């Protein structure tokens, strides 16, 4: 069985890579405005949009203008989404006559979807109207993904430019990400999903009679169109509460495979887009290699932990003690574990499995994937940004150790860059630890499991992942407001810092390539991986010991 699994994993990762390479090349072309095979249809549409919204594409924004545009755009989206939830009772496309969403939940949801987190404390079926789902949540799944991509492109572009204050035009990057990349992919994936049995309708909920003679209400809705983008845009907000474990969201093993692929694909293509943009493909490969290594490492560990089974179950007479609680029987254990890994490594958080039921060490991997900042592929755009920041820290140390002023991709790393890198890499850890400590004090649930749930919640919010380990109720004012703040913090600190550093990098000259440390070398990849792991391990070792590791030891000692 193990061999088949390993083969399947290898195949999956191979297919992922094979698709990611050309997609990355395509994305690079889109971002610089070169012609692609979709140009004949989309260029007029793009220009039409610019005309309607009055965008002057020739404006090269400095980082401050870029940041203000991005923040305003997100602020408007946030307010609109909040109002939509409050007004949904009076609006059409609401066959179930759902009322306004509770204020704290609505704030949380607005933040959650604008920040590409899709932390969902509510039950979709009884909370959100079709209109809210489509024009609120679904729309933000597109826009938040495009926002992240725009920020990443600005940062990448800064490494190509020199001696300029301009880092590009936010509206152009946003529009191109949307209509050339996200929309076409989403349409294609949605169509395949529908063909496999995913629903996409505006029907009222179906009332069915079960065999036991009880009534069952089966929720309906425009699901497929949103499921496609929730994966592609790594936001992960399920149309139904059960997310990708729901048969309407994930009807067949093929859709499971497709959804898994979609949630990784754009994030995995970003390093290749980067390589193409800086016109040095091997740079992209180096980043991709680091991400892939970390992903495979986590996946292997999670798989090992699940395959070991649960001694408590073995005692009950279950063969090998394999823990199948919370896993989707239709797909099997491998599909569940790989989904859990991929869903937390990327900042998607979509799940076909109940994370709360996983073995403690699998949960540890899921936590670690997020706690290091969601950089193993990560969210579209933001994951790549995070990895670049780790790259800067790695190059800072490398520079010192080879006796040169640190630089990355030919740009010097000076105190300003270090301040920002330290803020991006450390501040989220600091804030999530503080919030976990506050939550622990306020809520009190003194078990390793209780601790794991809480630290997981804030790690998930901070890295804009949105998955949860929580079995208990999370739709409380306390959680809604604290996670709301943490989500905003995690998202916009990263983005603003990325743009600030883009602004400074774009102004720098290039260091000549002589005696530069090769960033496209195995040694760099090794240092990059080490920096990610050491940073995560040193920050979270104590909580991991008290949470998942202790729980694991308890299970195995009884």
């Amino acid at each position, binding site marked *: 069985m193990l061999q088949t699994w390993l083969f399947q994993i290898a195949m999956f990762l191979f297919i992922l890579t094979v698709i990611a390479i050309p997609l990355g090349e395509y994305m690079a072309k889109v971002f610089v405005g070169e012609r692609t095979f979709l140009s004949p249809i989309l260029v007029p549409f793009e220009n039409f949009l610019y005309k309607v919204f009055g965008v002057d594409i020739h404006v090269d924004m400095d980082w401050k203008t870029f940041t203000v545009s991005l923040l305003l755009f997100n602020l408007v989206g946030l307010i609109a989404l909040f109002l939509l939830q409050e007004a949904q009772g009076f609006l059409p496309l609401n066959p179930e006559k759902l009322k306004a969403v509770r204020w704290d939940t609505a704030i949380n949801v607005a933040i959650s979807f604008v920040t590409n987190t899709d932390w969902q404390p509510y039950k979709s079926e009884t909370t959100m109207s079709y209109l809210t789902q489509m024009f609120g949540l679904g729309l933000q799944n597109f826009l938040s993904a495009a926002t992240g991509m725009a920020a990443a492109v600005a940062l990448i572009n800064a490494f190509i430019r020199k001696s300029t204050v301009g880092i590009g035009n936010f509206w152009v990057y946003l529009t191109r990400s949307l209509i050339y990349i996200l929309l076409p992919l989403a349409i294609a994936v949605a169509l395949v999903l529908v063909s496999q049995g995913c629903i996409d309708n505006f029907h009222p909920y179906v009332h069915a009679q079960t065999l036991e003679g009880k009534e069952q209400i089966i929720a309906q809705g425009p699901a497929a169109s949103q499921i496609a983008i929730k994966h592609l845009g790594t936001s992960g907000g399920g149309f139904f509460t059960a997310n990708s474990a729901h048969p309407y969201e994930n009807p067949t093993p093929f859709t499971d495979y497709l959804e898994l692929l979609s949630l990784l694909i754009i994030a995995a293509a970003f390093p290749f887009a980067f390589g193409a943009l800086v016109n040095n493909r091997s740079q992209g490969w180096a980043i991709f290699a680091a991400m892939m290594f970390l992903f495979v490492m986590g996946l292997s560990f999670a798989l090992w932990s699940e395959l070991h089974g649960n001694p408590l179950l073995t005692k009950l007479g279950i063969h090998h003690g394999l823990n199948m609680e919370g896993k989707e029987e239709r797909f099997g254990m491998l599909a569940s574990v790989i989904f859990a890994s991929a869903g937390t490594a990327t900042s998607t958080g979509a799940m076909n499995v109940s994370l709360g039921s996983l073995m403690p060490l699998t949960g540890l991997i899921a936590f670690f994937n997020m706690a290091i900042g969601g950089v193993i592929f990560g969210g579209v755009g933001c994951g790549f940004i995070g990895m670049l920041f780790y790259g800067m*820290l790695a190059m*800072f*140390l*490398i*520079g*010192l*150790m*080879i*006796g*040169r*002023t*640190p630089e990355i991709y*030919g740009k010097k790393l*000076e*105190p300003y*860059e*270090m*301040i920002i890198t*330290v*803020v991006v*890499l*450390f501040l989220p*850890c*600091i804030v999530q*630890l*503080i919030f*976990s*400590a506050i939550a*622990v*004090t306020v809520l*009190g649930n*003194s078990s*390793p499991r*209780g*601790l794991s749930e809480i630290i997981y919640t804030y790690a998930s919010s901070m890295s804009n992942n949105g998955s949860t380990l929580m079995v208990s109720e999370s739709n409380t004012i306390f959680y809604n407001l604290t996670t709301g703040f943490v989500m905003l913090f995690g998202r916009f600190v990263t983005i603003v810092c990325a743009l600030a550093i883009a602004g400074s990098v774009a102004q720098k*000259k*290039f*260091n*000549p390539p*002589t*005696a*530069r*440390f*090769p960033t496209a*070398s195995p*040694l760099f990849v090794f*240092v990059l991986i*080490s920096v990610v792991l*050491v940073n995560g*391990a*040193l*920050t979270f*070792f*104590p*909580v991991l*010991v*008290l949470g998942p590791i202790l729980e694991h*030891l*308890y299970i195995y*000692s009884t």
Partner: protein
Amino acid sequence: MRTSMLWNTKFIFPAIRQAFIKLNPLKLWHNVVMFVVEIGAVITTIIAALSFFAKDQPFFIFGLQISLWLWFTVLFANFAESLAEGKGKAQAESLKQNRSEIYAQKIISDADDKDDKVELVPALMLKKGDVVIISDGMMIPSDGEIIEGIALVDESAITGESAPVVRESGGDKTGVTGGTKVLSGKIKVEIKANAGETFLDQMISMIESSKRQKTPNEIALEVFLFGLTVLFAVVTVTLAVFGAFMHVEIPITILVALLVCLIPTTIGGLLPAIGIAGMDRLLAHNVIALTGRAVEAAGDVNVVLLDKTGTITLGNRLATAFIVAPGVTEEELARFAMLSSLADDTPEGRSIVVLAKEKLQIRGRDIRSPVGAKFIEFRAETRMSGIDINEVQIRKGAADAIENFVKQRKIKFPEEVKKDVEKVAREGGTPLVVADQDMVYGVVYLKDVLKEGIRDRLLQLKNMGIASVMITGDNPLTAATIAVEAGVSDFIAKATPAMKMERIKKYQQDGYMVAMIGDGTNDAPALAQADLAVAMNAGTQAAREAANMVDLDSTPTKLLDIVEIGKQILITRGALTTFSIANDVAKYFAIIPALFISKCPILNVLNVMHLASPHSAIMSAVIFNAIVIPLLIPLALSGVKYRQASVTFLLRKNLLVYGLGGLLLPFIGIKLIDMGIVWLRIIG
């Protein structure tokens, strides 16, 4: 040798005293990491005191020892810094000492007066612009420039070089440094620096930690260390909260111990010492860095501009051969060449006379200029010099100038000579053609002679990834030949001061870090533009002011050492940072199980070192953390060895030694200390 110097008691005792003085929080707060340790030490000391009064005997003993080791941690760091300061200061102070006892003869009358009236003033009272007279056996009171006279100066006080040097007004050797001694001669010196602003003063401020200007890279590293400190502070505090949540009370003393072990105390404690020690090392090479930035730039230099004359070649071109024109004998050519050069006092001219004497086999005494001879001096317009003896007009000069000269007299310039001229130029020599009003006699071959060992040095630069550019006033052809011969990467021929500066700017625009070495006033603009500008101490004041380093020995090839020291400082910082962070892993494995083992005995599986008890585990980690600082002082002060190797090799080596070593060493160290604690029964 340096290490033994380091442990000299002359430096140790003052450093120990300084280590305590630096405990003053007002002095310590600029070093965030150590400041945090000190606060921790204060807290644990208070707690230990309280537990003493509460008659909690076992905890008092434990708490007291933890507090002591925390104080030691700070003291060790202070000691490292003081030791580095002490070494540099000792060198500088002895010079300063000399100076304060010097009196200078300051000229107080108008310059018009025939007899200068002088007044005896202490050297420290001299101001910029004052003019002093210095004669045999007197000390030079301050930095300045000779405006009149010539003197033999003993600069051994600052350079350690016992051979005296000549300094004279006009030209490129006008600079004198305070604290040096005039052996013979009488000079008028215009003082160029107020008291407190001389090179010496600048140098002293570079090695005094509190006054030292931090380099950008040092600031960047401090930012990183500050971030780590805050991060670990939060990790520690939240751990207390999580512990409380699991019903484990963690005593504050232990929390502080954990925090101090986690924050990067090793690099935080040694960071100032590393920077100061770098300055000390430069000083040991007789180089004074005027800004910290320059030292750092030195490690990054990728282009070096070198003057050909004096740096790559011996200085002056010397006549090495006579190439005769058809129908002329060598004796004839030699005689005419000699005659034309008799009055030529340039080194080239003298070398022609020397060579001619050799060829004609005549001794010095026999040369006398012919009666009635009239010397024609070299002029830029004619580019010839020579002698008129009655009707005979002998000229020597550049080929085209002589061609012009003979053409005016309707004489044909022989093709053969033209070819010889070209050949000489191609070979990098300078051809001088000798002629009179009737015929062309031939060519004098003037040749540049490379300095010994220059090829090797340039090759070493190349291996370090540094391109060398030769600056010369020669024509491109000559320049190219010498460039090839010396192995420089590029050259600037027919260089003017403006061209040098333009070239530096161009390199900088392409992102290169440019080093320039110069001595003359005409080098000053280029020096000011360069990232690393090294002025020769013997150079003019203008050059020294434009530079950011001064080489006291005036050896231009010293750049290599400067670059290495710059790199060494960075490598030492990087290595110790990596080491410091890698150490944390073992400390976690020592402390975390110790914290929770009473409540969750199951966590003993994490006690991989099998440390005896929770208290001894924490104690061992703290002690290891403290003593690693003094153990690394020699490394911090002498710097991690730099090898000219590929960057990948360097990184791999340093990662292996300081990364992997830093990971493994504390496991062994903490275990050994723990065994020692058990053996000595230090903790009850």
